[in-house]
């Protein structure tokens, strides 16, 4: 039995199938970071740290005439988003209901996807994660609200990357507000702004909940590493007569290998 304890939940196979499918459907559009950075794993729940291949000096050693250094690792962070499902709704799912209320799951999926994106793009200090925007060595570019100017700002970011020797294609993580503005906008002559931006970056333009403004990131590979222990899973916490308490969980580390391979565009 795995640590998720799914076998202990009063949830039928049919209902588990429904819950897992719903979670996948809700998570996939929102997991922006996974669309733009390298992915390694899953290495399993037991995986606890990523080796950095570096050492820290130690002040002393157990005896004279011996030197000591300590290996540095990046510990895995566990994210967990709890939610509850009504047992009456689960019984209806078993009867074949198509409109089962899984709103709490949808909300938990949104929260954990946003947290993952935020950790990757803006960092998670308590977990020792430096985000892409924080790590960037380039001056941030102000994005602003005037989306007619976005092509100019994104082109400036691409130019900064080229000057640093970071070749394309590039990807653009756009926060929800900026993404909506881009979708709504046509430039002079009716050409969609979305297509114009894609031509500049030559790569994907991604709706990225949790991102403030936008971030242009290299897509050549090897610059940003998202390493997963346990990939997103659903586990069982407890239940009573009315509801089953479940949770979404994942464990990962993230590190920026090439700080000058991204440019932040601030809101």
């Amino acid at each position, binding site marked *: 039995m795995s640590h998720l304890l799914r076998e202990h939940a009063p949830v039928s196979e049919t209902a588990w199938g429904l819950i897992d499918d719903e979670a996948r459907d809700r998570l996939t559009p929102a*997991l922006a970071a996974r*669309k733009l950075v390298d992915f390694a*794993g899953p290495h399993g729940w037991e995986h606890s740290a990523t080796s950095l291949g570096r050492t820290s000096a130690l002040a002393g050693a157990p005896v004279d005439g011996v030197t000591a250094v300590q290996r540095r690792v990046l510990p895995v962070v566990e994210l967990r988003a709890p939610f509850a499902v009504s047992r009456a709704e689960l019984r209806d799912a078993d009867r074949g209901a198509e409109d089962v209320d899984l709103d709490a799951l949808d909300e938990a999926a949104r929260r954990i996807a946003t947290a993952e994106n935020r950790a990757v793009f803006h960092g998670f200090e308590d977990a020792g994660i430096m985000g892409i925007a924080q790590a960037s060595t380039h001056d941030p570019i102000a994005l602003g609200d005037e989306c007619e100017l976005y092509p100019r700002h994104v082109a400036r970011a691409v130019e900064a990357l080229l000057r640093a020797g970071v070749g394309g294609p590039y990807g653009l993580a756009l926060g929800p507000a900026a993404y909506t503005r881009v979708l709504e906008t046509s430039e002079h002559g009716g050409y969609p702004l979305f297509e114009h931006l894609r031509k500049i970056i030559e790569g*994907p333009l*991604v709706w990225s909940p949790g991102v403030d403004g936008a971030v242009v990131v290299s897509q050549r590979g090897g610059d940003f590493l998202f390493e997963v222990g346990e*990939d997103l*899973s659903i586990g069982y916490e407890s239940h009573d007569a009315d509801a089953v308490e479940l949770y979404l969980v994942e464990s990962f580390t993230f590190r920026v290998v090439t700080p000058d391979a991204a440019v932040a565009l601030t809101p």
Partner: protein
Amino acid sequence: MGFDQYHEPAAELPDETRTFARLCASLTEEAEAIGWYEQRIAVESDRQARAIMRDAQGEEFKHFAMDLEFLLRRTPLWREIAEGILFQEGDIVEHGEEAEEEAVEEAAGRGEPLVGSTSLGIGSLRGAAS
């Protein structure tokens, strides 16, 4: 009748696992029958009887292949490894090692769940964006 193809209480096992276990038991029985026929044929002096048993053994080989195909269709990683081993010329052990290494590396690169994992299997989404 025994239910000893189940190593764990059958009531606690999902339907899929019970079906998988039944086919594993069937595969074992076919393999045993193939071995038994081989031994019987080796000691039988009557030509007609040997021909009948050879024919029956062929049926067992066919059932064995069908059982194996069923199991491999449900385990894509092991299917990929088996494809590198089955019907290949050359060193079988070498093919096995190479096929396993290649298949596992490729699966890890795609971020596929570990064997036996109950994760949602989302993994990497590179290439999924517009």
